[in-house]
């Protein structure tokens, strides 16, 4: 897993609550044999990202010109509810999102993000509203910087928002450690075992 220390990127606002995993990626699109490549199916159920002819629906928020190339998603309450399938974070990551900011997350989705090197951030509703308004009001793409070392969100326009995150998970992200990474931290012990057997 890539370490996550600091990221500057375009912020996209998705002012919806309870966005669930089936909305993030519909079940018919789970049949790939990779974890990658699910970005094309992100929010692809009828009435969301695409028009019936397959072209991008200009009314869908993520299709706004100023959001193109966004890596930070700001959303409403209870983001990622529903199934435990990792296809949901896989699809968001493949589309380009590395940070998801919301007032609350579904538990499993929250954990799955960390497993895949993504950072979910819980902020107060007031801060969420502030970020969303800035993103929605910008014409050329509103950028923010997420600093995981110092646990701050800043935007170069004088805004700084501190956030909290689990120490253990933060440590794993900073070092780029997933469960495999954690076990490999003890690689010396594995090697010793291998030599003695």
């Amino acid at each position: 897993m890539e370490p996550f220390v600091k990221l500057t990127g375009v912020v996209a606002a998705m002012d919806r609550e309870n966005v669930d995993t089936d909305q993030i990626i519909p079940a018919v699109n789970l049949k790939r044999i990779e974890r990658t490549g699910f970005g094309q199916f992100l929010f692809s159920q009828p009435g969301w990202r695409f028009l019936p002819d397959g072209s991008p629906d200009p009314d869908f928020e993520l299709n706004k010109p100023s959001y193109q190339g966004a890596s930070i998603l700001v959303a409403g309450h209870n983001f990622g509810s529903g199934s435990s399938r990792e296809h949901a974070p896989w699809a968001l990551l493949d589309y380009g999102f590395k940070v998801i900011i919301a007032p609350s997350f579904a538990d499993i989705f929250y954990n799955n993000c960390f497993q895949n090197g993504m950072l979910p951030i819980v902020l107060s509703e007031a801060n969420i509203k502030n970020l969303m308004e800035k993103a929605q009001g910008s014409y050329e793409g509103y950028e923010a910087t997420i600093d995981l070392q110092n646990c701050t969100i800043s935007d170069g326009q004088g805004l700084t928002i501190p956030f909290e995150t689990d120490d253990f998970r933060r440590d794993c992200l900073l070092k780029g450690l997933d469960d495999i990474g954690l076990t490999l931290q003890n690689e010396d012990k594995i090697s010793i075992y291998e030599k003695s057997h």
Partner: protein
Amino acid sequence: MAKTMFDKIWDEHVVIDEIGKPTVLYVDLHLVHEVTSAQAFEGLRMANRKVRRPDLTVATVDHNVPTTDRTLPITDEISKKQIDTLDNNAKEFEINYFDMFSQGQGIVHVIGPEQGYTQPGKVIVCGDSHTSTHGAFGAFALGIGTSEVEHVLATQCLVQKKPKNMEVKVNGALPFGVTAKDLILAIIGQIGVGGGVGHVIEYTGEAIRSLSMAGRMTVCNMSIEAGARAGMIAPDETTFDFVKGRPQSPRDEDFDAAVEHWKSLSTDPGAHFDKVVEIDASKLSPYVSWGTNPGMVASVDGLVPDPTTLDNPDEKVAVQRALEYMDLAPNTPIKEIKLDKVFIGSCTNSRIEDLRAAAEVVKGKKVNADVNAMVVPGSFTIKLQAEQEGLDEIFREAGFEWREAGCSMCLGMNPDILMPGERSASTSNRNFEGRQGPGGRTHLVSPEMAAAAAIAGHFVDIREWK
């Protein structure tokens, strides 16, 4: 302190054991198949990781492979993709691989023992629940999920909380016509499909000791249907004879040294089991499953149960629902259940001993006109051996289809499936709703019972077969 065999194997494999955290165990053998490995390999690739021990990793294709002419293109796109993906991953990560055309190809749980990879004392994992099969050699063998597959590929370790010890002691001898399959069906019928949850079962007792390796594998294979994490049988001369001389087995002095070690693994007298169940083998008969889980079994000379006679309301509902799905009336004699298909195969019962036993039953007879019957050997090697012994001729003459090796109708990922409403006698391990095809109805039996049912068109008591 007196230890069980499971305790000993576990202790020998501990890499890291810290208080408050699960144990990190070393894995001696990682078996891989096409269905649960693709995303794990992809994970390695994304993180720029290698397979830590390609030499301890063995892959084959079994779930999706056609059991008909393999030179023809595979029509199901997803099946083809999964197979092609494993082809490529095996090459890229340089792991041992028996592809669809290899002489070593077969059901992963059949070829492990056949090639000699499976040995006593090992920790063996595979992204497949029936990995428990390998416990028949006195190994700790368990099924894992895709994220764990990736973890094992990358680290050769498994993060596990230690399960508890359970003993299933089978006293006495199995009567004539009663096989290892009947024994494990009887055990699951007695302890229930949740009877082994959280435990590793060690099967002991006279009836277990007298089983061949094939029979022991059948028993351990279905430990998972009893809910257990794994099943095991202590290695003895039967085990050592089986392992000796296989392509991957230790040779000469190495083999002798290994046998010495393997002998030391047996459970110490007085070792503690958290749970003990005793079974009297001499009282058992051939079994047939009548419902939709492997604990719903009856003796072949018995009746389909009557839910109205049950006191437990949950059980009553479960039985009712199962009978509805299976389209069976209460109190129907098992022997009157008519069949559409007969499947002899799967990692439970597709070894050469199983095929010999089934061939013996059908020799010189004809499959019932209403029945479609097939034999799917567990591996390419078994298929060849059976052909050398002329078993294929016996089956063909009787009207059975003789197929290429694979999982086939055990789970119906390839085109071998039951049609909605069709009823099969199957030597496989799961009779869940739709397991062998949507709407299909499965009765689990031994190879002998399946063979006899194919001839008669309904279940018959193999003890009376002439």
